[in-house]
């Protein structure tokens, strides 16, 4: 039985203990829109609209990849990671808490307009699950796997498919950082041969497979496939709970911009990574949950006004994901807007004199339309 109590690995453990003791009196009183509750499990409706802090060590451990770029810049600037608690995330927590792990994995699809906070919601859920002790399989952006790939190798495992060594190795590295603890404990169930001389015996820790993938970049995609299959097969046993978090899941069923050497277009099934991920997202396993986000921003060949699951996934994707729980994410409510604005003011991010006035706030709300991304971009130059 794995130890759930301290699910995060050693480096973050110290951070954890210090966070729970450090409280409001230590610093100047934070205003209404902050909450010192740093454990997502304890976030309830009364925390809605407030921002909570994630200690930086935890950020590095849980989110080696996956945070939006602008948010990472914000973390660097403010030297702290503050995430807003919003209703879609709270909804998801309720579902996850109440989900029966014996049943097949339920799929949750987060969708919404551009810039409303889908990726941030996903990251919130990932943080929650990692605190709870789940094994998190976080794919930061599936679109990265279907476009701009410099190297495509023909897969040795299956002649029809194509490998992507670079993307696979990057992902393996990040996966290792976030889930080191588990990798030592999960054992392989089959023997895998990587080439003429390398092979992994049965019963070896999964970490070895990952290292093998990192060492031999050629077989990185196959290593990814192995990891995914092992996790899927072992999750129903109940020794750990698996969360599959995919950002930009509509990339798996769209088109790619990659071409084979004979200039014919590559369809997503022909990529090993995509193929394996699709198997993962199917709900034929139990013992966990699948949370996915639709994203128009990185998607290929889709109009920019498309945001519903039907439009972005296409018929194929929709059928594949069919019984899913849709979770819409909307723009900021007035309360959320106020807390975001208050946070910027407090961190002295808004330097303009007029930004401090009521009129300035009304102006910002009007111009950004309460859209989080627009607000962030507007507040930048101010």
């Amino acid at each position, binding site marked *: 039985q794995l130890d759930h109590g301290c699910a995060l690995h050693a480096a973050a453990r110290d951070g954890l203990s210090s966070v729970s003791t450090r409280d409001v009196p230590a610093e100047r009183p934070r205003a209404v829109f902050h909450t010192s509750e740093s454990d997502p499990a304890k976030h309830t409706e009364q925390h809605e609209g407030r921002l909570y802090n994630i200690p930086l060590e935890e950020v590095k451990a849980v989110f080696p990849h996956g945070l939006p770029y602008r948010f990472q810049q914000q973390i660097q600037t403010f030297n702290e990671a503050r995430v807003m608690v919003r209703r879609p995330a709270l909804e998801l927590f309720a579902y996850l808490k109440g989900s029966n792990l014996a049943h097949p994995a339920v799929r949750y699809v987060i969708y919404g307009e551009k810039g409303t906070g889908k990726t941030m919601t996903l990251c919130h859920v990932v943080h929650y699950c990692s605190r709870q002790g789940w094994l998190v399989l976080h794919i930061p952006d599936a679109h990265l796997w279907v476009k701009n790939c410099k190297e495509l190798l023909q897969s040795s495992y299956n002649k029809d498919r194509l490998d992507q060594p670079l993307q696979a190795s990057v992902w393996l590295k990040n996966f290792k950082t976030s889930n080191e603890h588990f990798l030592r404990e999960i054992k392989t169930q089959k023997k895998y041969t990587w080439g003429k001389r390398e092979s992994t015996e049965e019963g070896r820790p999964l970490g070895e497979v990952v290292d093998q993938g990192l060492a031999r970049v050629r077989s990185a995609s196959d290593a990814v496939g192995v990891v995914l299959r092992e996790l899927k097969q072992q999750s129903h046993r109940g020794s750990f709970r698996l969360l599959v978090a995919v950002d930009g899941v509509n990339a798996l069923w769209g088109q790619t911009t990659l071409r084979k050497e004979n200039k014919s277009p590559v369809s997503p099934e022909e990529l090993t990574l995509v193929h394996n991920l699709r198997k993962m997202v199917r709900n034929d396993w139990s013992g966990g949950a699948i949370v996915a986000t639709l994203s128009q921003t990185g998607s290929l060949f889709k109009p920019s006004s498309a945001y519903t699951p039907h439009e972005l996934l296409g018929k194929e994707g929709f059928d594949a994901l069919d019984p899913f729980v849709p979770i819409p994410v909307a723009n900021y409510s007035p309360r959320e807007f106020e807390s975001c604005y208050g946070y910027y003011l407090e961190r002295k991010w808004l330097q303009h004199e007029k930004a401090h006035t009521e*009129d300035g706030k*009304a*102006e910002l*709300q*009007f*111009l950004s*339309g309460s859209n989080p991304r*627009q607000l962030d971009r507007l507040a930048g130059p101010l």
Partner: protein
Amino acid sequence: AVGRVLRLCCRWGAGPRAQTLRLICTTTAVQRKNVGASGPEKYTEAFIKKQIEEFNLGKRHLANMMGEDPETFTQEDIDRAIAYLFPSGLFDKQARPMMKHPTEVFPEQRKIQWGEDGRPFHFLFYTGKQSYYSLMHETYEKILDVQKHQDQLITQDLPLQKEKRNLAGSRWLTKIELEEMLLEKLSDDDYSRFIQLLEKLVALPCADIEENYIQKFSKEVPVQLQKVVIEPLQYDEQGVAFSTGEGKRKTARATAVVYDNGTGKITVNGTDILHYFPVLQDREQLLFPFQFLGRIGKHDMVCTVSGGGRAAQAGAIRLACAKALRSFVTEKEVEFMRQAGLLTVDPRVKERKKPGQEGPRRKFTWKKR
């Protein structure tokens, strides 16, 4: 052209009335060498009279042609008849065929100013600007008269009349109008001196006696703002007040309906403004009327717009919105909006391309060889 009949109207040896026609048959080449630049062509009185007779005859002929009564044929009828008989597609109205009374066609000119012996009639002729200086003298005489009258009243211990004439509703003649009146070129300095004299005259307390003279040089200023009627608020089913406005910019036309008791939501052609105007600049244009009045979150707006481009549509909606907001706001604020330029239609449109140039202003690349 070898033989050409010319009417030389300048430099007559004879007096103003006895003007003979001199038929000069010359070649154009010779003519060009002899005659220097003699200013605009001067028309004689007889010539003008003849033109008037011809015009009247022509008017009667035209009336007959059109089947109307020659006696009651007005200028408007003439214009309509000419437009019917000689249709023209030219854009410039001045370039189309027209038939007008000769006094409108030929500009007013000075008659000859000197007599048979060459001696000028007016004593100020040799100043060069005889009518201007005579006007100045006259005005100064009036001033002296008024001052004398004032002294008389003081000696008689009668109260000086102090009725200020209404300066707000009238203005002095402009320089061009004065030039037309005097039939002489003036300089800016001359004009300003004349206006100073007039002001001095008007400032004196007893200037009322010369009121007739002053009125020759003042004009009524037309009513300032054509009083635009501000529509009252209308109320829809739920009792929410709303008002409509229209606006345009370049080729875009927009109508806006502004509702009261709102949250600041704006819908354009059925979509949210964040989706319709992804560019910040356009949204700022829409924000401007609300921000100016300080009513950012208080109104809802639904608008429709068509034509033009992205920025033109934004400008059109802005104008429509400002016009609609007039009904919600006091008159003073309407005046502020007008001065801020929120209620004026932007007259700028795309300039036409000219032949011989690549665009409206850009010329073709200049090659030295």
